[in-house]
């Protein structure tokens, strides 16, 4: 969260970065509040947790490695359909193993796609990700026999977690489960960005030409983080299928790719928690505004985005971090 100080040795800096701050502890305590304060919002809370995990996956490549993507729903959707097809076509609905499968499938495709991704930069990079995203969407639509097409995949049913916890109407199970997976996802991501590998990625983001000069194989680093990010996005997608028992083409849509980037920038890039804060603000605002005004809520969302850029150019979390860091 702070810039690298010239005089500190890298490993000292990394060690300091990986220490848990009070804010993080308080934040995770706060995520338990919905259980007590608004138990009727748990389904929304679980979808926010899923969006946050998806946004973290994008932050890993966008915030830490500088890969701007407008097609990450490809991996989210792959995960969602993996879980869905496993259940609907093969009758396997065990949640934990399905989720691992979703991550594996999305990660594999991400690994293959990463060979294309590292070849391009800037606008071309954005457009290649966008193109891949659309190809995924159109492919799923064309394979209606497998995916159910626009009607969505029918017959998905998720078994009880550990054979004990049923997905209930109120969303207690769904939120608990999503929250645990989100926490684990953050833990993994946090470890990655605070490792020497994470440091190398930041180096690539800052100056792609200099890294090979200091002996860092930057395209291998990029491929690795892209694969990890794809797997994480796939897990988020799988989670959505499991908590809703539905999969539709919208999991692969451009809209979803664009929304997640909006959430991430809104919260602040390159801080992991920005992804979570962005998802919370965006989806809570959307839910509340749409409740008041289902037809024009996006006017206010649009205004919110514009105001954030004008007054908080580092995202909402970046804006608040400024005060914190000054004190600390």
């Amino acid at each position: 969260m702070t810039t690298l100080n010239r005089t500190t040795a890298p490993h000292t800096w990394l060690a300091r970065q990986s220490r848990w701050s009070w804010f993080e502890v308080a934040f995770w305590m706060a995520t338990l509040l919905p259980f007590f304060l608004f138990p009727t919002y748990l389904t929304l809370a679980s979808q926010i947790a899923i969006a946050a995990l998806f946004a973290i996956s994008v932050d890993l490549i966008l915030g830490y490695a500088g890969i701007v993507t407008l097609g990450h729903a490809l991996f989210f959707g792959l995960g969602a359909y993996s879980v869905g097809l496993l259940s609907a076509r093969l009758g396997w609905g065990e949640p934990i193993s399905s989720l691992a499968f979703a991550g594996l499938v999305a990660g594999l495709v991400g690994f293959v796609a990463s060979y294309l991704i590292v070849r391009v930069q800037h606008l071309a990079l954005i457009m290649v990700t966008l193109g891949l995203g659309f190809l995924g969407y159109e492919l799923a639509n064309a394979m209606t026999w497998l995916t159910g097409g626009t009607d969505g995949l029918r017959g998905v049913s998720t078994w009880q977690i550990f054979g004990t916890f049923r997905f209930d109407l109120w969303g207690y199970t769904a939120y608990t489960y999503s929250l645990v997976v989100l926490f684990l996802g953050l833990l993994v991501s946090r470890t990655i960005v605070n490792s020497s590998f994470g440091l190398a990625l930041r180096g690539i983001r800052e100056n792609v030409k200099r890294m090979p000069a200091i002996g860092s194989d930057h395209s291998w680093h990029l491929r690795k983080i892209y694969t990890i990010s794809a797997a994480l996005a796939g897990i988020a997608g799988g989670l959505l299928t499991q908590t809703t028992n539905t999969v539709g083409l919208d999991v692969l849509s451009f809209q979803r790719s664009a929304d997640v980037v909006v959430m991430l920038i809104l919260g602040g890039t390159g801080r992991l928690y920005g992804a979570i804060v962005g998802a919370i603000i965006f989806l809570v605002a959307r839910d509340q505004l749409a409740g008041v005004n289902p037809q024009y809520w996006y006017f206010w969302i649009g205004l919110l985005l514009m105001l954030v850029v004008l007054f908080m150019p580092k995202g909402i979390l970046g804006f608040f971090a400024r005060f914190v860091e000054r004190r600390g």
Partner: protein
Amino acid sequence: MTNIVIVLFDGFAFGMLLFVLSVGLSVTLGMMNFINLAHGAFGMLGGYVTVLVMRQFGLPFILALPVAFLAAALASIVIERTLFRRLYRAGELNQVLFTIGMVFVATAAATYFFGTVQQPIRLPAWLRGTVEIGGIRFGTYRLFLIAIALAITALLVFGIERTRLGAQIRAAVDNQRVAQGLGLNVEQIFGITFALGSGLAGLGGALAIEIVGLDPSFAFHYLVYVLIVVSVGGLGSITGSFVGAALLGIGDVAGKYFVPEIGSFLIYLILVAVLLWRPLGLFGRR
């Protein structure tokens, strides 16, 4: 044989529509690196202005076109002066977020004022129907589209190559810092270019109604097409946008005709293939 001519013709006409919609973004993106995802919103504005002046004031279609151009250009000047100017140094992510926010606002405004309904227009009789040339029937309106796009291309190429402003624009696209150092007012040049580009988008929006219709989702829907044209053609290049748009239009229509099974994938395949082969686009230089 006739089929191939017809398919090429239709694809080219569709490509020309994409060209008018996107050429402005290519030049402004190439010059200032300003990512304006609200470009399609100016197209939508042009479309709604056309509908409004034709219905309310009974203006003929052909006169509504310049009004659409002016309206979009004027709106862009105001927005550039008051808002975009603050964002040139704000970084691309902030530009993306801000302009997406603008698209949301524009879509909501269009819904509020015009409703969600499709806005049909009645073309004058001379633009409807078909014209027979050499035994093949061509859509009159598509011929008209191609004529307008060619005229715009000629004007732009002439303007960029031969006029003083054109030279300044070229200098600013090539190297903004040096151009500034030579005493050019880059911000002002950019403002003018931006207005021109948005005006063309407005004109494109007006021309598009007949082919693809107009409703509040226009700004988002065509954003994707515009971005594809710009990236395939290469930033800052008029020729690039022209070729990119033509390629895309023809590829799209021909693909759907000859291999309808993969018709909907084809433009994305072209996009990815071209960019992997030439990451700067067909005519991009930087």
